């Protein structure tokens, strides 16, 4: 009986330790806060509603991942200190779709977005850079593409390894 109890406690400790080992990216990233910059349309003729929807959805999706300590809006005066990364989003491609065309033909009318997302330090050093797509092909309105895009950006950032804040600040100096 005593042996079984020991085995149980050993298994529990191993499971706990393996959970800790598996989660350092999250712990490390939570040392950072992020400030979402306004979306740069680049050379692309994107509607203001899409630009704003990408920005607002990014704020929601980044907060959902709990990867960062805090998520700040562009221009927020509370976003101060060295442990803040700035998320810059530049639209690279935009294919306006049509919900009616999707409903009628199924195969055409997709709304497609492609953006370059960069996480930068205040000094301008790029920490993470990803190119992300967001589309709506079958169901949903055109603005749903912005929600899908923001979710994909948040997932891409969640998967990426961020440096420790002190290291990143020292390197940029």
């Amino acid at each position, binding site marked *: 009986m005593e042996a079984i109890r020991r085995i149980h406690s050993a298994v529990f400790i191993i499971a706990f330790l393996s959970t800790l080992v598996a989660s350092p990216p999250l712990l490390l990233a939570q040392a950072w806060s992020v400030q979402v910059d306004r979306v740069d349309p680049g*050379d692309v003729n*994107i509607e203001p509603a899409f630009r704003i929807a990408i920005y607002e*959805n990014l704020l929601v999706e980044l907060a959902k991942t709990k990867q960062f300590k805090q998520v700040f809006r562009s221009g927020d005066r509370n976003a101060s200190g060295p442990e803040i990364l700035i998320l810059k989003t530049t639209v690279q491609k935009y294919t306006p779709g049509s919900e009616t065309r999707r*409903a009628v033909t199924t195969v055409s009318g997709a709304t497609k977005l492609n953006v370059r997302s960069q996480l930068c330090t205040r000094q301008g050093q790029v920490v993470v850079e990803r190119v992300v797509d967001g589309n709506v092909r079958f169901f949903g309105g055109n603005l749903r593409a912005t929600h899908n895009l923001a979710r994909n950006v948040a997932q891409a950032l969640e998967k990426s390894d961020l440096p420790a804040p002190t290291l990143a600040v020292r390197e940029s100096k």
Partner: protein
Amino acid sequence: MMVKIAPFEQNRRALACLPLLSFCAACLMAQNQGSAGPASGSAIRVTHVLGFESTSNNANGELSIQEHTLRFQKSDGSNAQVGVASIQDLSLGVEDKQVGGTALALGRAATPYGGGRLIGLFSHKKYDTLTVEYLDPNGGLHGAIFQLNKGQGQVPKDELVAEGTHVSNPENQLTKPSTPEAKHGGN
């Protein structure tokens, strides 16, 4: 050579077409009602798509401009507001959407012999979208999108411009949605 169809069979076919026809007629009537022109008062019925201060997405309510304040009053009585002075930019757009939501989307998918596509061809409606960019007291940028009936977008825009709101591209106002499948490449 004439093919005779039994009167009973004829009636059955006519009855089968009736629900589809009545549905299409209802959709067309809904479209006409939507383009009935701007509201006379300052409060306009809108759907909040996203982004406005402490308001849930896709909430219906009334948008009004009173005492230098842009106010969104939800159907349940609660309201949210921002000062007109904090509005940084304003733009209008046009959006073409399918009506009926998820229920009709499922109905379309379930209709046999491609009937769903035919329904989809008629069950769409054009809306105006009003996009408002404003700053909160901390200087944080917010963006809100409202969906209005077609032709009503100009009313709040004119009122906000009269209150001194900045409009970045006044010549591009009420921009039509770009041609589908026309790609805009940045690089």
